[in-house]
């Protein structure tokens, strides 16, 4: 009986770890023109982080790059991202995505 409990517990741990380790979100990389100071750039960060499903936003001013990580199953379309960047007052240049 004890062995069975241990096995079930072990199986639960493995299942939990596997779902955690292999939970696959998506990372969107946006090239944005017009990002010229940290205070202004925070506007785009605010705009994106308030979007449903977005887990994190990182802005790299020197590379004109905005990295958006979203939860598994969440999809942001190019049109949606373009609109968000424009609403923040900037100009989207290009976009790419990759599964995490």
């Amino acid at each position: 009986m004890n062995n069975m409990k241990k096995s079930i517990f072990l199986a639960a741990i493995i299942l939990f770890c596997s779902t955690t380790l292999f939970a696959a979100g998506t990372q969107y990389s946006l090239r944005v023109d017009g990002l010229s100071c940290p205070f202004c750039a925070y506007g785009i960060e605010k705009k994106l982080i308030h979007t449903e499903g977005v887990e994190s936003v990182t802005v790299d001013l020197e590379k004109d790059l905005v990295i958006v990580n979203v939860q598994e199953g969440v999809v942001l379309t190019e049109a949606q991202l373009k609109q968000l960047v424009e609403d923040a007052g900037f100009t989207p240049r290009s976009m790419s995505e990759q599964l995490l």
Partner: protein
Amino acid sequence: MRPSHWLGWWCSLFLFGATFQLSAAPITFNSALPVSKGEGEVRVQAKYLRATDDPGPMSRELTVKALPIVGVWGVTSRWTIFGIVPLLDKTMELDMPSGRSKRSVNGLGDVTTMVRYTAYSKDQPGRTVRIAPFASIEMPTGKDDEQDRFGRLPASLQLGSGAWNPLIGVVATAQSLEKEWAVSASYKFNNEANNFERGDEARLDLSYHRRVWIGGPTDGLPHFFYAGVESNGVWQGKNRNNGQKNPNSGGTTLYLAPTLQYVTQRAITEVALQLPVMQNLNGSALKQDFIFTLSLRLNY
């Protein structure tokens, strides 16, 4: 010599720099930099003006302290609205027949609302150029019937003008990661209230800011430290008392201001010291010593 000859102009000028700009931008005037749609920013300034160079016999000394609070909201990526609520403390000391006297007042001044439209923008990697016309209206929210033991305070020493005063202008900003240029031109139409009409005001402002230090976190937006210089050319027409032009009012002043700015993603802390390098004022107007500004802008 009544202080209404010159004081109104200064108080108006004094608050102008507190009004509009919220992005990392000039300190003494406006900017064309963007505010995100549906997002807000706030700015609080502490301003201190001193004027003691009196060509007249009364040894006048003026001190104005102000705490303008500015709220900004991005209606769209191109349309931005602003609200400016100034708290004022004005004190004037002068020689009167009864001896050295002090007249002072403090409280809420005239609230201003403004709208700005980004008419042109050209974004490139790490840089932007923008041109934005703007218009504002100063509303008579400040008291204009304050009194002291000498009687009713003169119109320009009042907290409010009692009039609705519109302003129009245009600002252009070119900003890169290393530096920023800005130029602004504006005209304010001052209207009559209580038989007093302050002269209209025209301004031409320039600024240049250069990034001199970069630091902060390695895994997020960096912190920038800017040093800069700003200039403000200000012309004011003569005031009118009971319809008559006052010869001891109005004129032209040119300010130069060294500035420092510490910019992070959520806040900007900045100081500016405006020095009047040229004052060509009409008649016997009191001349200014300086205007000091300490400011905090917050992204929320």
